[in-house]
């Protein structure tokens, strides 16, 4: 017989298995990365093999894709979208723009490091990453989920003040609803 701890461990394994193999993405089509998604999803690369599927609204989604550079104006909406998602939720940053600003490194209106503002679980580098890279990024995310390491949502909750401080520094006129989990 299993004791409680082991039983809950088994439940966790089942949960993580399901989460791993069912990633519903809400693709926030910023920048040029959005155009890499159609080939990723369609016949050639067929991301649905891995249980990756588009979802229409953040309420239903698990993964938030940031597909390119984020202007400050868009960042506000992205934060809102992220906060509307249900836990557990993951963020994947696409391309060098989300990592270090990419070719927009000196722009007056785009942020240069996404993980200062949202807890990124996986970065996919490239400018833009090709569908193979995108899929490999998703597989990396799946590995993290299976190991229980994809804890972006938890990080966000715990360090909410730090994230908020960064967000407020960029977004001048802060008119956002409270995020009180």
């Amino acid at each position, binding site marked *: 017989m299993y004791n409680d701890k082991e039983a809950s461990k088994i439940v966790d394994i089942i*949960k993580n298995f399901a989460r791993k193999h*069912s990633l519903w993405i809400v693709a926030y089509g910023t920048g040029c990365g959005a155009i890499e998604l159609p080939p990723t999803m369609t016949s050639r690369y067929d991301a*649905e093999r891995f249980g990756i599927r588009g979802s229409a609204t953040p309420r239903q989604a698990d993964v938030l894709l940031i597909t390119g550079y984020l202007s400050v104006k868009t960042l506000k909406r992205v934060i809102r979208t992220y906060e509307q998602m249900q836990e557990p939720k993951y963020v994947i940053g696409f391309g060098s723009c989300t990592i270090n600003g990419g070719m927009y490194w000196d722009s007056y209106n785009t942020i240069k490091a996404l993980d200062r503002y949202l807890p990124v679980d996986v970065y996919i580098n490239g400018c833009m990453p090709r569908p193979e890279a995108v899929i490999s990024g998703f597989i990396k995310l799946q590995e993290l989920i299976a190991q229980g390491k994809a804890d972006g949502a938890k990080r966000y909750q715990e360090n909410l003040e730090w994230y908020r401080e960064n967000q407020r520094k960029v977004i001048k006129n802060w008119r956002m609803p409270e995020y009180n989990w």
Partner: protein
Amino acid sequence: MEINWSTILGIIFTPIIAFIVGVTYGGLTRVITARVQNRYGPPIFQNLLDIIKLYSKESNINHGVMQHLGPVFAITASVTTLFFVPVIKDSTVFTNFSFHGDLIFLLYIMVFGSLGMALGAGQTGNPNSAIGVSRGLSQLVGYEVPFVMALVAIMIQFQTTNLNDLLAVQDHFTKWIIFQSPFAFLAAILAFLGMMGYAPFDVVIAPAEIASGPPSEFGGKYLGLMLTSRSIFTFAKLVLFTDIFLGGASDFITLLIKTFILYMIPVLTGIVFPRYRTEQSIRFFWSWPLFFGIIAILVVVF
């Protein structure tokens, strides 16, 4: 009080079987769609994984009591529909309560879920949900009319409104109602396309247009419950159609074969067709299906 074990067994196992079959069929749809589009496609149990994942979501939100209860209404309707349909012919376990209800009751209980769901979607306050509901209800009026015509033709022809009596009539495959009254079948199967909500009649949940419509504010356990309900309801509708037109099934293998064939009709139609606008789909339902329905009734009369 005497305990009727076969009833209890039926109550416990029918929804479970319905869920498993419905989920597998849902996964199969995705595989078939993928193959038609020259893709490999997800595993066949993908929908099950999706549902487990949705239930295992840690946080959930709702906008009020009606949104909380909306999916519950939906699953109540699905399971009740299932209980009032004889799943296996002449089986003591899987006939459930089908002697206590009839076709007209089924027609109404099938709408019960949509109405409850619509109320839930309405409370979210999301305009997309309301648009979806508006479209869904309009389309409902469209396909219910030919469906009822087909049922009326059958009810008058066989002088019964109970499914078990209809099953008793179809004791040999030459006596299946699909052969006895083909026009009724045509009208009903075209209405069935609308009932299943696949393309070209999927304007209700148009994901890119109105953000999946009614369920656009549902996530986590609520969405999981909705998908569960949808799986059960799919199976219930398939069994209903099998019972009415294809002579039911006396064992599970036959049931699976018959329901699968029926299920492929909307699925394959859905793969190859684009989407109708709401008024176009209503006009469609009120043209050919209605025509077949009228012929079906006229054939019975004369």
